[in-house]
């Protein structure tokens, strides 16, 4: 019954989201920093330029921050260099006064360094947080302008990951990496210069070790990257499996599937464990290996430096300062290589973020697009053809005429194209042939937002926002008063259950209304449409989870509302559409029958079959 590990891995890898905490603990340079975002950037230059544009408003802050880095790095180097004359002075029995003076200089240098480093960090967190906010806002703004097709073809998880992982990676780069790269380079160059000025031969010994350190470091890094990737994939699979099976846990239980789940999970878990041990080991290797390699350098320099003191008269102060420098020599190299990884993954993230920003938005309205003072809501479709994929036609030759005050119903089996019609009306998708007229003008001559604001929709999938019940209904018309909202709720029979909620209209709705039943959520959705004054009303399976008695009440309540509107109703349940002015029976994208309830029954066609139970909608 259970599937094999390979099969499971293949299926669930793409499903699982690797959480932020998923990266190795302090994974050391190289490996650990490759977070889930990862990937190599393709257009590095372009991404950098665009990121710089975000930095532009803060260029003075950044400039000062860089100066501060210079000061603090310089102070660190100079401070430790100051020990040389002090030690030499002590060796040569200098007086107390000169010791005090040297220490005074040192204190001043240290203090300047500390202040500069604090100032730099304060500035940079301010800059990076502001830039992050701006990038997030821009990305969000862009998302608001993307066509519905984009959302239908991209998963929410994917877009969420742009917002979270990718923007975070950019933030990390701004916060630390760039500065550390800069200060690391300065430290490296500064140390090298100071070392050479003290003793050329000793410096050469230190430098000889650099390629060795780099080689070993590179080896470990490439290994650890490989294992880390394998670990992330395995972790993704485990998370994906958990997510799926726990979400459907009740179904698992009803069908006694627990044993299979446990077995399959066990396989994935074991696979993760094997890969994780390797990844964690190699990820943590960099620290002890490189750290202790520099200890070896330190030992050798100490040995040779000591001999130089004896034979060449190298000063003791210089010697002790030099040995310290040589021990710390590998640190900036490590730091730089580590930051380069972070920067690359941030740039790859930035590229993905910018790719979303570069997506084609909904086509702009023509400059002379229509906006009429009062829309009545007459809708006319003439020989409309449409397919989501141009090669596969979903709707064929749809023609209809709906006048204000009329109720037009669509019935038909799943996939017949009922919902697609509403997608066209609200211009979520554009038709391929034929035309749609609203009040005699072509739908596409109007401003897009104008036409949408004149259509109120209750969608198939009920979705609510975090906020109070009141706020959720008000979403339909932002300037609606509390009284109007209660009135609307009453008209669609929602008032009754709302007042019974713990805080009535002020009850908080969280997690898409998990605390409400499906029927109650639908009622709120209907109320939201009812409060709107739009002349065209679309009800797409709006009452499918509401019992028939309440449905009748809603209908009565909305009669007054519908009198002045054009209403399109899509329903599975035939009782919902009985009193429509016209019922369209759709099959495979074609209207095969149309007429009133009575007319259709008299025709003894498909509708008759459905109504009398000779055929069933599936």
């Amino acid at each position, binding site marked *: 019954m259970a599937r094999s590990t390979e099969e499971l891995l293949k299926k669930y890898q793409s499903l699982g989201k690797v959480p932020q905490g998923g990266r190795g603990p302090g994974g050391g340079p190289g490996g650990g920093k490759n977070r889930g975002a990862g990937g190599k950037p393709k257009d590095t230059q372009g991404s950098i330029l665009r990121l710089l544009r975000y930095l532009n408003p803060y260029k003075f802050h950044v400039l000062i921050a860089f100066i501060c880095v210079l000061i603090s790095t310089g102070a660190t180097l100079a401070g430790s260099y100051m020990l040389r004359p002090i030690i030499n002075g002590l060796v040569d029995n200098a007086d107390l006064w000169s010791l005090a003076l040297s220490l005074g200089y040192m204190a001043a240098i240290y203090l300047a360094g500390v202040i500069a480093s604090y100032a730099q960090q304060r500035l940079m967190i301010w800059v990076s947080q502001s830039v992050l906010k701006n990038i997030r806002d821009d990305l969000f703004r862009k998302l608001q302008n993307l066509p519905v097709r984009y959302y239908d073809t991209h998963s929410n998880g994917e877009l969420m990951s742009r917002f979270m992982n990718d923007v975070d990676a950019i933030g990390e780069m701004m916060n630390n990496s760039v500065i550390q790269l800069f200060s690391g380079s300065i430290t490296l160059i500064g140390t090298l210069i100071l070392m050479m000025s003290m003793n050329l031969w000793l410096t050469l010994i230190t430098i000889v070790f650099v390629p060795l350190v780099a080689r070993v470091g590179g080896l470990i890094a490439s290994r650890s990257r490989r294992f880390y990737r394998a670990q992330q994939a395995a972790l993704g699979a485990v998370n994906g499996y958990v997510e799926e099976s726990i979400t459907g846990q009740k179904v698992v239980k009803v069908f006694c599937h627990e044993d299979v789940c*446990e077995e399959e999970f066990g396989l994935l878990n074991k696979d993760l464990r094997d890969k994780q041990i390797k990844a964690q080991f190699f990820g943590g290797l960099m620290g002890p290996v490189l750290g202790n390699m520099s200890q070896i350098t330190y030992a050798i320099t100490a040995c040779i430096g*000591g001999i130089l003191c004896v034979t060449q008269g190298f000063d003791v102060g210089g010697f002790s300062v030099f040995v310290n420098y040589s021990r710390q020599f590998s640190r900036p190299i490590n730091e730089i290589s580590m930051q380069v990884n972070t920067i690359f993954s941030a740039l790859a993230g930035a590229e993905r973020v910018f790719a979303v920003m570069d997506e084609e938005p909904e086509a702009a309205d023509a400059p002379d697009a229509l906006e009429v003072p009062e829309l009545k809501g007459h809708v006319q479709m003439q020989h409309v053809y449409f397919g989501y994929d141009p090669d596969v036609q979903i709707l064929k030759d749809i023609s209809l005429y709906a006048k204000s005050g009329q109720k037009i119903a669509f019935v038909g089996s799943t996939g017949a194209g009922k919902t697609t019609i509403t997608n066209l009306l609200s211009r*979520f998708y554009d038709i391929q042939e034929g035309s749609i007229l609203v009040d005699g003008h072509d739908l596409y001559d109007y401003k897009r937002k104008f036409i949408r604001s004149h259509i109120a929709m209750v969608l198939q999938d009920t979705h609510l926002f975090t906020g109070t019940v009141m706020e959720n209904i008000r979403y339909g018309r932002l300037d609606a008063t509390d009284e109007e909202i209660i009135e609307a709720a009453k008209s669609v029979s929602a008032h009754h259950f709302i007042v019974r909620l713990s805080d009535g209209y002020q009850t908080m709705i969280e997690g898409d209304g998990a605390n409400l039943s499906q029927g109650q959520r639908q009622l709120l959705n209907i109320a939201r449409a009812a409060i709107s004054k739009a002349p065209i009303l679309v009800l797409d399976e709006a009452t499918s989870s509401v019992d028939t008695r309440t449905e009748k009440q809603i209908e009565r309540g909305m009669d007054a509302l519908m009198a002045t509107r054009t209403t399109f109703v899509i329903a599975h349940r035939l009782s919902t559409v009985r009193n429509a002015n016209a019922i369209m029976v759709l099959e495979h994208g074609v209207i095969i029958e149309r007429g009133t309830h009575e007319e259709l029954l008299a025709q003894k066609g498909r509708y008759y079959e459905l109504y009398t139970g000779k055929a069933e909608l599936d």
Partner: protein
Amino acid sequence: MRFYFRYIKPYLPFFIIGPILMLTEVVGEVLMPRLMANIINYGVTAESTTYILQTGGLMVLVALMMMGGGVGGNYFAAKASVSFSSDLRADLYKKVQSFSFANLDHFHTGSLVTRLTNDVTQLQNITRMSLVMMLRAPGMMIGAIIMATQINASLAVIIGVIAPILIVIIGIIMKTAFPRFMLMQKKIDALNTGIQENLTNVRVIKSFVREDFEEKRFCDKTEDLREKSLQALKMMVMTMPIMTLAMNITTLAVVWFGGQQVLVGDMLIGDLISFTTYVVQILSSLMMVAMIVLQSSRAMASSKRIKEVMNEKLDLTDENAAQKDKKVVEGKVEFHHVNFRYYKDHAEWVLEDIDFTAYPGEILGIIGSTGSGKSTLVQLIPRLYDVDEGQILVDGVDVRDYSLENLRQGVGMVLQKTCCFLVRLRKISVGAMRKPVKKRFGRPHRLRRPMILCPGLQTDMRPN
């Protein structure tokens, strides 16, 4: 800690060897400056190249030993922490599989998923970190303090003065920063929820033309997050400069007082140099301890959430079932004065005095308005919940006397909120049915009405 011991036990050797190996690295780190001091004191000053060469060779040996210890310690730490968390995760999953519906309702689905993924990873990280750092940070601190005191006890007093002050300051910073970070995390969560909602509700937003409204709301949220992040980070960026400042002050003081001793000949110059190295070691190991504390407070929260799952009492088991081998054959269902409510503290019954018998071959329709308890009623038959009062019999036997597996295999049902799996759920054989129902549920998640379909018929449920 006792709770976790059973997961540690199988790997106890790793848990012990790892830190011990790390300790060798610490010993080396503490020895190195001492050896360096010896080179200056006895090699350079005495102009003895052999001594310098000998000590230098020793230093290389020590460094090699450190490398071995570090690599080994790292290996055992990785092995121990990963094995530990892997077993824990497997057990958690097992536990969730044994949960009843009521247990599942107790936790949100999303939170269960987080506990199994994120929280376990958190624990793994902290375990590994403690295995590497547990002895290292305090070991280095103690070792360095011993060395420093040995070199010059009077100078060690300086560290004794500055270290406590530093601890207090860092403690204050962390105490202020921690709640701010919690707040920041909350804002991040709020932002995430906002984005998620926006993505799922895109059609609602577009059809009501609320793009600008949403943008405004979002900008407010990001601004809020920016402010809260700044407040938290503002505290954190203080730690490094303060740390550096403390090190600098200590170094200056050591050189000032130590220098005077060197001048009068009470102290060797090499000792003074190595003393300054110990200052850095002691204060930075202090910092390390602080980091561990900070990390573990996060892990504590995760640990608490994991324990909640593991300690959740199963409220529905078939351990006491009297007829474990009994299978549902006919499908006769009887309700005897059944009362039920989801939460014991609710006054109102969800189902009150339900009493009926459904015979094999009959179709029983249950209707009622939204929220009247239809689904609840049928969920009691396969024992997804237990009745509070009264009794349910299937084939004349109390449902609590069946094994859960036999009972549920005898009662097929389609839930109101269906979900799709990546696999075909296998052909679901469903129970006693009279009217031939043979349809394919093209879109299972659209199916709203629960149907208890009974034996005799195969329904093919193919997720799309």
